Structure formats: C-alpha cells, structure tokens
C-alpha cells in the first residue's frame, strides 16, 4: 500500500494518513499503536508485528477535546485528543504515550479513562538526560514496555526481531537523510512540503513498505528547475504545523537546510547503533538526539545547536516555530531570542495553532521578515 507512492501521492497522504492506515490494518490483520511526541521507541512496537503511528494532530475542528483540556493547553495536545476522540479513534487498537511534560502526563490519564477497552501504556521518558540515572531509567522503561506489549499481544519477541526492526527503521532514517541532503543542495528537486511530508509519513506508515517508495524517489529524483534564488533557512522548534506553512516557505522560495524538529532532523538523528545488544543500543539512542525542551534542562544547548546548524549550513536566518501554549517553549523562548539576537543571527518566530485555518497573518509577517532581510 505504501511501497509504490510517488512524491505527489506522499504529500497527499501525509495530509490525512488515517484512512490508508485503517485500510492497511484491515488488509494485513495487524494492529495499530498510536503514540504522541516524543521518543516512543517505535522499533520495539514494530518488532511485535504492530504498526507504530505517531499522532500529529488534526486540522479538523475541535469538538470534544475542549471539555477535557482548557484553551490554554498545548494546541498539539488538544488536537491529538480530538483526533482520537472524534475522527480516527477506530484506527487505533492501542496507544503508547510518552510523558515528557505536565500536559502529556495528564493526556495519558485522560486517554486511558476516555478510551476504555483500548490498550493504553505510558512511556515514562526521563525528564533529565545528563546523569547516569537517566540511562538506567530509559533501559528500565524499554524493558517495561516490552513486558507490557508482550502481555497485551500474548507474544514474546527475541533479539533477532528487534534487530530486524531496528534495521528497517535505520534504513528509513538513512533514506530521509539522503533526500534531505539532495534537497539542501538542489532545492528545486524537492520542495519543503515534499521533504517534510516524507519525514512525517515515515513516522506513520509501515516503513518496510515505505522505504521502497523512498528508495525509488531517491534513485529517480531530478532538479525540476533553477535552484538559484532560494534563501536558505534553519527551521527550529518542536513541530511545524499546519503543513501549509511549508507551502508558504516554498512560495517565497525559502529552502530549509537544517532543523531541530521532532518531525525533521531530530527524528532522523534517532538511528540506533547496530551490532550490539539491541536494548542497550536503543537506550544509547535516547541520548544521541538533539535538544528537546521538555527533557533537556539547558537552553544554552538549544542555542548552541541552533547556532551550529546556522553556521554550518550558511543559512541566512532561523525560523522558530512556536506551538501556542507549549509551556516548555514559552519558558525558553525569551532567553533564546536574546541569545540569538546577541549573536547577530536573524530569527523570526512563527506562532501557530493546530486548528489554524488561515495563514494570512503568518504569510504577511514572514514576507515582511524576509524582505527586510534582503534589505540588510
């Protein structure tokens, strides 16, 4: 189902992948396990013959979520809740929900209580990463998740199954990395929307199938016009939604050459070292990914990471995407802005909500920012 997709089909499917996931599950007889951001070990879920799907909100109207989460709750959390309560609940047989902040902690409880009959397991990610105890805890949580999935599915997995799953996931990330590199050098070969749709869909569909699509695209991709006239930018933040934001970037010829997003580089960075004990390798991977505000306690790291990407890629500016009411970002941003400004790096902050219907204000501000940049 996902092995023969061309770029256009991927973009289309990434907008609303749930009908195809449902059809795939019915056809294959496999179960679908949803996860929210971030860091759910999808390789483990996949090794059980389940389909791990990262849930990334909906642009459809909120109907039921507001009665569970108030309007100052993280826009992504409300949107995800709405998606499972109103629009795509029947797609999922169970959920593995990482807890990384107060909101995701409550979300686990709210989902469990409101979705009786579904498998709901919490993945208690450590909210500190610099001490030895964090490594201890990631490993313990991986082992607990394996036990929990075993109890639910009635299956046991061995190292071989885990190793195979890791290889499939690693290949997916390697392919995305190659495509990203191609796009950086030749922005006309792949639009921002197309690249980020591939990364998004990779987190939602069967990777063994989807890798075939990605391989073919990599082998056949060609520049589709002039690659001149693009402005290289770094995209920073946690996620970037609604996806029409990428259309705006494409429209004003911005070329994302680096990012810190969970739906971008931070996902690709999650390649698992192969060859050793798979649980140890998965544990190690947790600490190799880039900055993620809820689990890293040092915003200087975020600044250093953004600065390094900016310098190494030779980008002209940083565009920071702020999800409305993400408390973690809201505590970091004022200092981050100051540090970036002090460094002399142009930065534009986009405030977004998952239910945003009109991006006209974003377009106007973005255009004004880049016009002023050209004038510098």
């Amino acid at each position, binding site marked *: 189902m996902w092995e023969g997709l061309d770029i256009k089909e991927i973009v289309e499917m990434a907008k609303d992948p749930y009908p195809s996931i449902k059809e795939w599950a019915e056809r294959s007889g496999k179960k679908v396990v949803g996860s929210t951001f971030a860091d759910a070990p999808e390789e483990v879920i996949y090794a059980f013959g389940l389909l791990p799907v990262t849930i990334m909100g909906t642009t459809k109207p909120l109907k039921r979520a507001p*009665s*569970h*989460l*108030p309007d*100052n*709750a993280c826009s992504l959390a409300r949107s995800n809740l709405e998606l499972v309560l109103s629009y795509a609940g029947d797609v999922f047989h169970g959920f593995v929900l990482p*807890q990384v*902040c*107060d*909101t995701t*902690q*409550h979300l*686990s*409880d*709210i989902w*469990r*209580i*409101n979705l009786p009959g579904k498998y709901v397991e*919490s993945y*208690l990610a*450590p*909210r*500190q990463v610099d*001490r*030895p*105890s*964090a490594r*201890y*805890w990631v490993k*313990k949580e991986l082992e*607990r998740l394996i036990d929990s999935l075993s109890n639910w599915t009635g299956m046991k997995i061995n190292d071989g199954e885990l190793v195979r799953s890791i290889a499939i996931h690693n290949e997916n990330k390697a392919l995305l990395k190659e495509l990203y590199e191609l796009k950086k050098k030749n922005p006309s070969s792949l639009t921002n929307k197309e690249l980020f749709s591939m990364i998004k869909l990779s987190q939602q569909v069967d990777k063994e199938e989807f890798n075939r699509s990605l391989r073919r695209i990599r082998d056949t991709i060609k520049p589709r016009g002039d690659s001149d006239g693009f402005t290289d930018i770094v995209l920073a933040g946690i996620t970037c939604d609604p996806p029409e934001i990428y259309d705006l970037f494409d429209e004003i010829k911005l070329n994302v050459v680096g990012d810190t997003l969970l739906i971008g580089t931070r996902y690709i960075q999650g390649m698992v070292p192969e060859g050793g004990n798979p649980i140890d390798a998965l544990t190690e991977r947790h600490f190799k990914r880039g900055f993620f505000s*809820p689990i890293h*306690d*040092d*915003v*200087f790291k975020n600044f250093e990471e953004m600065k390094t990407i900016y310098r190494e890629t030779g980008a002209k500016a940083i565009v920071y995407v702020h999800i409305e*009411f993400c*408390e*973690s970002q*809201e*505590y*970091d*941003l*004022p*200092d981050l*802005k100051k540090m970036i400004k002090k460094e002399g790096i142009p930065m534009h902050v986009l405030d977004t909500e998952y239910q945003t219907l009109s991006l006209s204000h974003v377009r106007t501000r973005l255009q004004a920012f880049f016009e002023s940049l050209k004038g510098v």
Partner: protein
Amino acid sequence: MTEKITSKELSKKITEEYLDEAFHAHEKGKLIGYSTAISPVEIFVAHDIIPIYPENHAVANLTAKKGAELCSVVESMGYTSHLCAYARSDLAYRATGKTVTRGIPEPDLFLACNAQCFTLTKWFQVLARKGNLPLFVFDTPEFIMDKRAREEIVKYCVIQLKELISFLEEITKKKFDYDRLREVIKYSAESSILYKKFLDMAQYIPSPISIFDALIGMAIAVYRRGTPECVEYYRVLCDEIQEKVDKGIGVLPKEKEKYRLYWENLPVWFKFSDHAKLLGSYGGVILTSLYVHAWSFEFDLDKDPLVTLAENYVSRFSNSTIEDRASMALELFKKYSMNGMIMFMNRSCKAVSFAVPTLKDVLTKKTGIPALVFESDMGDQRFYSEAQIRTRIEAYFETLDGLKK
C-alpha cells in the same frame, strides 16, 4: 505564670527566625537552595542548606493583589500571560524588586522536583540561567497504577537522591551525614502526623477549620519541615483547634453549616478572605482539598531514609494518576462528610488543572454530588470575573438545596 504562645505567634516567630537565618546564610557559611514546595527538602536541611521557596514569596505578593501588576511587567519581557502566576510574579520581582515583603535571598543552587509540576522546573531553569547556577532536576515519573512499575520508579528516585547528595557534596565540599538525615526525617514524620491531625479536624460538625485555615496552617509544613520547631508548631496548632472542637466552636455555628465543601486546586489567592466570607454567607464552608494534603507525608522510619523519601515524594497527588487522585478525594469526601464540591480550573496551574474536568466527571459520578466548575487564575486578577463567580455560586447552592428537598 507565663502566657501560652499561640500558633499565630509561633508561626510568626519561626518565619522571622528562618528568614533572618536565610538572609545571613553566607555569613554563617551556609548556602541558599531554591526548592519546589514538594521536594525532598529533608536532604537540604540535613546538609545545612537553607531551603527557600519562591512560590511562598509569590503567594505573599499574589494575596496582596500584586499579581496583575507584576505579571504585566513580565509579559513585556516576552513571557506569555499563560504561564504560572507564581513564576511570572517572581520573574517580575527579580526585574523590578517590587514585593510586599522584604523579598527573598538570592539562590546559590536549585532543586526542582517534577512530582509537583514541570512548570517549576522550567521556571528554575530561567533563574539558573540568569545566575549561571547549578540546578538539580529530581525527576519523578508519574506514579502509575502498576505495582512493579512503582517499585522501579522508587528505585530510580533513590538513585537520583544519591546523585543529589553527590551534587550537594560537590558544591559544598562537605560529606553528607546520613545520621543527620535520619534525624531530620524523624522531625518531618512527626510534624506530618500532627499536620494531618490538624487537617482532619475538619471532620467535626461544625468544622472548627476551613480550607482557609488549612492554607495558613500549611505554611510551616512547607518551609520548615524537618525541624523541631515545625513539630512544636503543629502541636500548638492541634491543641488550639482541639480546644475549639471541645467547645463546639465551628467556622460557622452548627445550625448554619449547610454545605460542607471540597475544593479542587490551589486557592484564588487574591480572593482568599472574600471567598470565605461569600461562601459563609450562604452557609458554606470549604473543608479541604488534595492540595493541602500534599504535605501530609507518611515517612516510615524503619525504612532506608532515601527509600521512604522517594516513596513519599513520588506519590504526591500532583504526580498520581487521575484515578488515584479521585480515590484520594473520595476518601476525603467520606471522612469529612462533604456534600458539595468546587472545582477550580486554575489557568496558572496546568499540572493540577488539566486533570480537573476528568476528575470532576469521576467524582460526580461516584458521589452523585454535582460540582461547581469555574475558571480563573490563582494570582492574576485579569482572569477573574467577580460577578460571574458570585452568580455561579448562588446558582450552585440553589442546585444543592434542590437536591436536599
């Protein structure tokens, strides 16, 4: 004959001595450690680090109705109005020096325990960055309802407490004294039993205390636990309240006490006494909340001190599942014979408030008691609508009356 000291006088004395010591900490070779109100502060006390709770200082300013003014300052610094009013007012205090108190001493280090909330961790990160100071995050995963997982969570927390001790030893260049820790926990255990006894006096009809008394009474448990003076304070307080019980003195006279209410969340600090008067005029007394019970620890002195600390701090209501929170609240409903509930959706406190709608559903279903839900902010007056809240309280009591008929 010497006059018996009252709990109010004792609280004032303990607080003044504590702040005096804190303001002169460096002269005495001691460090100031900022801490979340829920955190294993016994480790600080045992290591001669003076704990300071910026939340308490924020409460003083918010209760004095300085919230909107201070919060506006911090918004001009780029922070949004959706963040915790404690954090906003504190950051504004640091920028302007404005406070209704003498202020609080500057920190040397930070301890953030996320069993209370993640907000404090982020707030402390801002302060730690500002002063380039060390911060220790005591990460307490949600105390999920699985026995084996709980055992592992406690083990993880114990490992972290050992890391905390090493962190403090490194900073102070002083060896940690476990015997002293045992002694400190003994005081905490003793004061916790007395504090709980004080809170539980709300069982009496009429109740001799309301939640407003509990909120005043909890202050010493928050910032002086682990000390003999804390034990002494609750002994005096319990004796005073017992005297009221013996004389049949209630917050309201017995014949006027119609509604014995549960409160969910922190209080609306700047409406503290207004709410007590308003509810009282209808015959309502708020008796308790899970919030005030957050400092009712049950330390087991027979256990390894780090284990009993970990078990207690990780299992606070704010780090428990909504199902467990509901069980804790239901126990209070039964024990205190409550017949109403006010569920406050506090914009400032996401850690508590995001559970409220689901908690309300569970509690109303299990008790058959309707709930009054209202949204506001614990410290920022701009999110408070007096007329709306009055109307809703009136309507709520009418509903409860209707049920009685």
